[in-house]
């Protein structure tokens, strides 16, 4: 708790600090490669029957939106005088982004990763090690993302004076959900500006995938006060009835995990459920509390698409636009595709393409063989 209070105070200071904001803006521009384009997907638009724009977070350094938050928090860690950064990772994207920024800023880096994920995502483990990070394999519990987060929290309380815990999603205890949202909100700010300039008006709808929910919160935030429909697409796995999914907002109920109250997939004893998705980055039983709030107020709506629909969307975007999306982002594409008939030809729809699919291609390759 003391560490969280220190973090809250430290973040409160830097978010108003000009020098910090300049430093952040410079790294986002020259290191991460921002602003990312808002790209009009003509062939997908033609096939869908409305005007589809892709927010190209897949073009960020390290291949996903994760870097936006990592730069912000790593700069904060340095301001707080912490020399060591720890993080949890599922698919390895957040781990790679954290290790990348730590290398750049000269901070020691330890990444916690579930043993199952270490096995499934071996190339990312290697990549983190190349970047100088130590990767600690977590063999407790379900050996996936939530267990990596448990272990990172245990490390943090043990080494709180020297260590900064860099959470990768809009989950965890306050102030993380707020802070991660703020660092990701650059996505929506850019998209709002770009769609006005390029497309001449606001979007009718925005689609984003939701695991913990950071890319969705990042693009939604600037649009909360517009009339755009905000739609979060969750991982339906092998089907909601199969029980093998991670559709927290669609199928979960209120719960408390990792220091925040939100929606959660847990059983009647309150134990956290095992979840599944083809997209390791969506494979989390909780969801950011602000998404639970947006669901409750009706400002955003959420539904799930299956592994199969996400794979179809992957192929559709790859063949129509030459852009292989990450399996996570393919869920957003699939969610839009499912609802495409709602829109008229002149309607503008933005899909947040949160990450690129390069990391998933080896799995498709194995599958094809």
């Amino acid at each position, binding site marked *: 708790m*003391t560490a969280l209070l220190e973090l809250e105070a430290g973040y409160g200071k830097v978010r108003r600090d000009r020098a910090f904001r300049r430093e952040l803006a410079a790294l986002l521009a020259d290191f991460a490669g921002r602003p990312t384009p808002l790209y009009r997907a003509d062939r997908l638009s033609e096939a869908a029957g409305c005007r589809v724009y892709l927010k190209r977070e897949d073009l960020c350094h390290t291949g996903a939106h994760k870097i936006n938050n990592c730069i912000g928090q790593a700069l904060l860690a340095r301001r707080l005088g912490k020399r060591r950064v720890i993080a949890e990772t599922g698919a390895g994207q957040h781990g790679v982004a954290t290790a990348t920024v730590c290398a750049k800023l000269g901070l020691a880096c330890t990444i916690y990763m579930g043993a199952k994920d270490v096995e499934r995502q071996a190339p990312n483990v290697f990549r983190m090690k190349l970047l100088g990070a130590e990767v600690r394999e977590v063999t*407790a519990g379900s050996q996936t993302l939530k267990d990596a987060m448990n272990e990172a*929290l245990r490390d943090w309380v043990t080494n709180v004076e020297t260590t900064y815990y860099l959470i990768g999603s809009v989950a965890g205890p306050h102030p993380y959900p707020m802070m991660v949202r703020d660092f990701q909100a650059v996505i929506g700010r850019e998209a709002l500006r770009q769609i006005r300039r390029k497309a001449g008006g606001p979007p009718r709808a925005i689609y984003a995938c939701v695991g913990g929910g950071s890319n969705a919160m990042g693009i939604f935030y600037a649009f909360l006060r517009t009339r755009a429909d905000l739609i979060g697409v969750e991982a339906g796995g092998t089907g909601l009835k199969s029980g093998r999914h991670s559709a927290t907002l669609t199928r979960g109920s209120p719960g408390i995990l990792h*220091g925040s109250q939100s929606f959660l997939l847990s059983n009647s*004893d309150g134990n956290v459920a095992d979840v599944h998705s083809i997209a390791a980055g969506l494979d989390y039983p909780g969801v950011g509390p602000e998404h639970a709030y947006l669901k409750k107020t009706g400002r955003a709506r959420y539904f799930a698409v299956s592994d199969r629909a996400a794979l179809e969307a992957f192929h559709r975007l790859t063949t129509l636009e030459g852009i292989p999306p990450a399996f996570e982002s393919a869920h957003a594409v699939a969610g839009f595709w499912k609802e495409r008939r709602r829109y008229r030809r002149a309607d503008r729809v933005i899909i947040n393409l949160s990450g690129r699919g390069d990391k998933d291609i080896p799995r498709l390759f194995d599958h094809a063989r």
Partner: protein
Amino acid sequence: MPGKSLVVYLTAGWPDRATFLKAAKVAAEEGADLLEVGLPFSDPIADGPTIQKTSSAAIRAGMNYDRALDLSQRLPPGLPRALMTYANPLFVRGWAGAFGEIRRAGFAGCILPDVPAEELVTYLPFRPRGFYLVPFVAPTTADDRLARVADAARDGAFIYMVSLRGITGARLSAAAEREIAGRVRAIRRVSHAPVYVGFGVRSGAWAARLARLSDGVIVGTAALEALRRGLGPFGRLLRELRRSIDIRPPAI
């Protein structure tokens, strides 16, 4: 000077239901003052490897909320007990209902390590009369938070002093001892509630040193590790701890 308390933690139903009940009986016989019964949770973030393992083993063997409360009815009647678990298993049932059921199962209070004092005070209105909730104090807890801790520690609650930075089962040091002494002094200024020190209590020597600084010690990881070896080693550990904390410090 009142006697020092010995608090013993056991995971409900571990290593099996019969041994768990026997261990509780041994604890009562060896002079434990309070039994802390752990309702196992899937994600015990405050616990080290030992209690993580006993928790997941108990869950795998079918232990859950209803069974833990049922089983607890058969614990030694003379030994006061508190239920230790995490927020979610009680939250999903509703705080008021859960606290009532736990009280009826014979527990005097509840210990929730993932709920800070600031949140804990908001749950106080949902308790049955006389049922307590235990706030935690860590070596890093600043003085300005202690008022909230004192506020939460009502109706017979003790304050759970975490002896070190980290999780259950870690190792103590002399530096940690000095910090604990400082925190206990700060607590005394704002609260009359007893302060029990837990996390890292492994030997009689440490128990004696920590008990001298506080009102008692909590033993969990070491107790479970002894119990894994058998009821004999478990009983011997408790006897050693009891004897150590009862020795009055030499007069100066």
